[in-house]
């Protein structure tokens, strides 16, 4: 017990005394969550709007004023025709084009109907759908106001036209947080653990440790525990960040989430241990871990939906632990399902954990 405690203490000293390790362990996860979750896809503001007004009457003027006074929108100009406005969209000078039909006020007065067309830049689908929703909200509130003041009930016909220039898969920012968790935990557990074990081999200290009465199991456990602790800290940090900074709801059961996360951590740690038994240098350990992370990015469902993959790729994906973890986390966090709906994922991860732990323990050498 004393041996284990002093070994763990030593491991933490290694970690705390190396600035680079600290950056990877504690700063990188936060930066990644912020980058993916906050900077890249986040709340919509400063929507640049161009108006094509074919009517130029009191009502359209009022409409424009309402948009320019709304703090989400600002009018960056007007265009004489739709093609000119579309051009501005394509050049990235505007995010949204609002086309107001001819005789707008007149139409509104006669038939209580007037056409508003919205053209949205769809290269970022999440943003595009959010912008559409914002614009619709503004229009709806204006419509309600008109009905109160004019005693009429105008109806806006909104036709969103999405230019899907890139990224045909419409993805939700909700994917990023579970996906990130799967990736960060794998990075910390597999890469940092394997590197820290291989470092002892490379520095020659493993030779001294093995020639000592220290049981190999103590060496392994002492190597894994610090990274397990740090991973749990990161897990909690990510949860707090995503709830309070990204405004992501945590709908499901927290104990279930922690439970499946622990299984995933054990899988990742065992992978790290396995890598450390296969290689001799820190560089090789790092490369092998990165080779593990690349398929995790592509096959975990984080970037591409698994359902839309060819069958062969779906089979490949089912070998990736993160694929099951990300799926379970998504269900637990965002959909808020009951525990029994993630039993399938939990069972597969548990089997992976048992297999990987036994294989890596069996391959850990008690000699050089």
């Amino acid at each position, binding site marked *: 017990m004393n041996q284990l405690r002093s070994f763990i203490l030593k491991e933490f*000293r*290694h970690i705390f005394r190396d600035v680079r390790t600290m950056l990877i362990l504690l700063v990188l996860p936060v930066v990644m969550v912020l980058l993916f979750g906050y900077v890249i896809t986040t709340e919509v503001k400063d929507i640049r709007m161009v108006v094509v007004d074919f009517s130029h009457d009191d009502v359209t003027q009022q409409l424009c004023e309402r948009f320019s006074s709304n703090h989400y929108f600002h009018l960056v100009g007007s265009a004489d025709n739709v093609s000119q406005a579309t051009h501005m969209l394509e050049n990235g000078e505007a995010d949204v084009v609002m086309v107001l039909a001819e005789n707008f006020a007149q139409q509104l007065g006669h038939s209580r109907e007037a056409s508003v067309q919205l053209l949205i830049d769809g290269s970022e689908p999440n943003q595009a759908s959010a912008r559409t929703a914002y614009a619709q909200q503004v229009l709806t509130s204006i419509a309600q106001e008109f009905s109160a003041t004019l005693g009429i009930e105008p109806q806006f016909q909104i036709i969103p036209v999405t230019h899907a220039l890139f990224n045909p898969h419409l993805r939700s920012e909700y994917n990023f947080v579970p996906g990130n968790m799967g990736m960060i935990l794998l990075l910390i557990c597999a890469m940092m653990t394997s590197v820290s074990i291989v470092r002892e081999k490379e*520095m020659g200290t493993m030779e001294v440790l093995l020639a*000592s009465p220290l049981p190999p199991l103590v060496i392994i456990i002492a190597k894994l525990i610090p990274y397990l602790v740090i991973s749990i800290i990161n897990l909690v940090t990510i949860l707090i960040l995503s709830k309070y900074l990204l405004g992501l709801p945590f709908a499901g059961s927290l104990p279930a989430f922690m439970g499946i996360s622990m299984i995933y951590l054990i899988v990742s740690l065992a992978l790290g241990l396995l890598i450390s038994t296969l290689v001799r240098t820190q560089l090789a350990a790092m490369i092998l871990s990165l080779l593990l992370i690349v398929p995790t990015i592509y096959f975990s469902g984080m970037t591409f939906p698994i359902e839309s993959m060819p069958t062969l790729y779906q089979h490949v994906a089912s070998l990736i632990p993160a694929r099951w973890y990300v799926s379970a986390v998504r269900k637990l966090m965002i959909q808020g399902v009951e525990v029994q709906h993630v039993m399938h994922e939990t069972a597969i991860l548990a089997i992976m954990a048992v297999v990987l732990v036994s294989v890596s323990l069996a391959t850990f050498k*008690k000699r*050089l």
Partner: protein
Amino acid sequence: MIVSVHNLKKRYRRVQALREVSFDVNEGEIFGLIGPDGAGKTTLFRILATLLLPDGGTASVDWLDVVRDYKAIRRRIGYMPGRFSLYQDLTVEENLQFFATTFGTTIQENYHLIKDIYQHIERFKTRKAGQLSGGMKQKLALSCALIHAPRVLFLDEPTTGVDPVSRKEFWEMLHHLQHDYGITIVVSTPYMDEAMKCDRIALMQDGQFLQIDTPQAIIAGYERNLWSVSSDHMHQLLGHLRQWPQATSVFSFGVTYHVTVSPDADANRLRNFLAQKGHQHIDINPISASIEDAFMALSTTRQG
């Protein structure tokens, strides 16, 4: 025999590292493995420290088999690998503390053992091990290998890369450990002068032992018939010496050649022989042999 090795063999993919090596070490002895890099010294240490499995033969440490009883052996030995193998980012004291705990003991319990050695570095105890000088690193490594009061110490080239003063101090410490605590020490070195400080040595080359004896006995075998020869044409001299029938071996030794000759050889006849070949300023001196002479002579006869 506290260390007993019998017909030990070890082969790496392409290299035969050990070819049927046998030797015994008496309790309380300082036993030296003398040989150049690649002789197989490290492989031998690793087998004795239970870190490698031999391909053939047997080895025992403290009457325990290195393969079967490896766990028990690991409690009884102190092993210092050839490379500095402590944690460079931990301080001197943290390293010592860690290894004491690893072996289930405390610094206080066996402080008397390491006191003489540790005193040299104690004032740097808050310094990181990576920032110590070569000599101090070795003293710390020795302290760490000793902290659990081992029966046998295996020291793989402990003085390589260490300054002469620290080397001398290091050997004094080893003798101290031998005399005061009866610790058996198996030590390897590429420095021939350090061989004289061992009780017995094994001259080692290409995975085999050339000779095992006390350093004095090994030297005595070459005492009476070793000459140091030089002339104005050093380059041709080597070939000419080898042509002389009574020279059994010739090898370069700094600025002269050391020639082993048959017991009935006469220095004047060699002088005449060389003069005929056109050499001038011929200088021939009978000299007392060193371990290096013995080693060179043995290794050339093996190769020849």
